[in-house]
């Protein structure tokens, strides 16, 4: 419970540190960019690629320190000093730049202001204390564990400690130097960065009018907005997947020089180092590069070699430490190291080709069936535009359509969680931006009807954004303490808070209720049931026997816990000492903490007053 802080000072400090980290990223990345052979880039593109390379370098540097067991403020601070100082010492040729002024109309400026407003809302939302299942179950919890033990070891009780964690490395730096606000800002920053990437790509290949609309279509995707304030990795994955394709298209034509694929290889490496799903991006671009360069082995060697050099470290680490590069998946293929995980439980509306054809409609209209994240109706509205005879420029449109379709099919075969498809949203936004500008360019009255529909959606989504952010303001402005805010808004907090305040640190605690471990007090010995569940089942040990053998002082259960736990506490004399309910629409969770009579007698429950309430 070391990371509970929010308020104006915290926000300012986190924002300042983010600016410093981004400054280091731009400086260092720009130096690295100088080593690539690239066509003439626009100033914005140099900034975009530099910041991407710089953030990637920070992740890899932190991985190196973590593996070496050097996760201290001094060592990480020294790493950041190197990122600042290295550009002074190393001279790279520097990418050629072109400055192009774009004339923005009043309407364009108003749209840009709208985008800045949305980024600001997301920024404020990112400054509240952390909540959310996966965030607290591993995106923040595992970096917290790494920091606690000072190195990035294999944590055998978790399933995620060997996953590719580029973005979590940034979260780790955030936790190390400030706390959850900085960690969350490290994910938030990818929201404006993707919008910028979409804008720049469309401006390069289609025009500035289309570019602004494409950025608007991406930013107004509610799933992207919602993700930006959580320490997840879906936006960073989307960013590096998009940049991989951007770099693939950049040389234009049919390049067959190996150097033309180097930047694409590096960004693909960043994608596979961010999330296992990035492997799909790598596979597809490998095939596309092979087709375009006519199976030129040098091209493929440079492309795949750089991808593996940049992102392969995570897979090597997993292979060395657990005998499986994608632990714990595909365990039967990798000598039984790992176990089966059903990622798609209760998500989606079928798996066949009919379900795939209906997927765009279903995801827009039934978001609850796809994990609750909203993709919105804008892309669906513009689907018919695919069949209009637009005169689109050459090969890059075709390449982007092929990649988008193939990557969507790949994701569809893996999982139907909507947030995974945020990686496709920037490409859809490109198509939507281009199509929409064409539609608006026509003379028919029909365009006003279309504009009305799109405008109404943009307004509604802005309303949703404002509403979503409402609960963050009081804690970010310091009107509510972070601890009180978490009590109201985070399901796991009250239970862990009780344990920290009212259970003696030497008591043995069994958490049978929560997968969100991040707020578990580090002062206590807590065994988390979800972490040992697989091991118990593999060993054929019954939960009741395990509880009996370990003789816990406190057992925390909820109504979603294994019924064996409630049977156990009731038949072994445990007494309820604390209970609470928590509603997370549409579910309500009822939690109870039981104590063994001996610790009540030994006064290891430190505040009997709370006990008396029950």
């Amino acid at each position, binding site marked *: 419970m070391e990371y509970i802080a929010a308020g104006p000072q915290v926000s300012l400090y986190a924002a300042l540190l983010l600016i410093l980290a981004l400054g280091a990223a731009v400086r260092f990345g720009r130096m690295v960019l100088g080593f690539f052979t690239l066509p003439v880039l626009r100033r914005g593109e140099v900034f975009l690629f530099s910041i991407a390379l710089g953030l990637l370098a920070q992740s890899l540097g932190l991985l190196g320190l973590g593996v070496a067991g050097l996760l201290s403020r001094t060592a990480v601070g020294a790493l950041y000093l190197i990122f600042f100082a290295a550009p002074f010492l190393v001279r790279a040729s520097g990418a050629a730049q072109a400055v192009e002024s774009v004339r923005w109309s009043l309407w364009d400026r108003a749209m840009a202001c709208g985008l800045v407003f949305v980024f600001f809302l997301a920024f404020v939302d990112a400054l509240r204390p952390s909540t959310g299942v996966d965030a607290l179950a591993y995106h923040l919890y595992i970096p917290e564990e790494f920091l606690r033990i000072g190195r990035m070891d294999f944590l055998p009780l978790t399933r995620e400690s060997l996953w590719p964690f580029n973005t979590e490395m940034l979260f780790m730096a955030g936790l190390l130097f400030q706390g959850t606000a900085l960690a969350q800002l490290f994910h938030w920053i990818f929201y404006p960065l993707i919008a910028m990437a979409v804008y720049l790509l469309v401006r390069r290949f289609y025009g500035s009018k289309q570019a602004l609309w494409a950025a608007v279509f991406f930013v107004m995707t509610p799933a992207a907005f919602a993700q930006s304030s959580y320490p997840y990795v879906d936006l960073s994955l989307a960013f590096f997947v998009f940049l991989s394709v951007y770099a693939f298209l950049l040389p234009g034509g049919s390049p067959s020089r190996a150097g033309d694929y180097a930047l694409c290889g590096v960004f693909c490496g960043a994608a596979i180092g961010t999330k296992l799903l990035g492997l799909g991006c790598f596979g597809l671009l490998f095939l596309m590069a092979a087709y375009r360069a006519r199976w030129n082995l040098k091209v493929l060697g440079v492309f795949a070699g750089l991808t593996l050099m940049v992102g392969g470290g995570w897979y090597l680490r997993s292979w060395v430490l657990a005998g499986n590069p994608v632990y714990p998946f595909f365990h039967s293929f990798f000598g039984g190291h790992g176990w089966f995980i059903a990622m798609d439980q209760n998500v989606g509306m079928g798996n066949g080709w009919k379900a795939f054809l209906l997927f765009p409609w279903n995801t*827009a*209209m*039934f*978001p609850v069936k796809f994990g609750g994240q*909203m993709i*919105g*109706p804008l892309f*669906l*509205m*513009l689907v*018919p*535009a695919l069949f*209009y*005879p*637009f005169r689109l420029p050459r090969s890059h449109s075709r390449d982007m359509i092929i990649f988008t379709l193939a990557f969507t099919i790949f994701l569809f075969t893996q999982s139907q969680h909507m947030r995974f498809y945020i990686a496709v949203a920037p490409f859809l936004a490109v198509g939507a931006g281009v199509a929409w500008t*064409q*539609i608006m360019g*026509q003379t*028919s009255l*029909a*365009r006003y*009807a*279309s504009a009305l*529909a*799109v405008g*109404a*959606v943009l307004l*509604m989504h802005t309303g*949703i954004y404002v*509403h979503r952010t409402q609960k963050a303001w009081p804690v970010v402005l310091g009107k509510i303490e972070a601890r009180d805010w978490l009590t109201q808004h985070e399901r796991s907090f009250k239970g862990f808070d009780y344990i920290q305040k009212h259970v003696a640190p030497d008591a043995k605690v069994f958490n049978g209720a929560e997968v969100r471990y991040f707020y578990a007090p580090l002062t206590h010995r807590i065994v988390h049931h979800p972490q040992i569940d697989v091991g118990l089942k593999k060993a054929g040990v019954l939960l009741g026997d395990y509880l009996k053998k370990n003789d816990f002082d406190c057992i925390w259960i909820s109504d979603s816990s294994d019924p064996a736990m409630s049977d156990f506490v009731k038949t072994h004399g445990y007494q309820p000492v604390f209970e609470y309910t928590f509603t997370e*629409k549409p579910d309500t969770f009822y939690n109870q903490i039981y104590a063994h009579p001996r610790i009540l007698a030994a006064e290891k429950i430190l505040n009997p007053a709370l006990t008396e309430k029950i």
Partner: protein
Amino acid sequence: MKSRWAAWLLAIWMGVVWAVYVMQVILPKIQGKI
């Protein structure tokens, strides 16, 4: 876009998607809040 019909068809489709989205997603959300 060459065909006026095509433009109108697209506008009608957009209107239909919008209406279903409002009924299916937005209104239940608002009612849930109340």
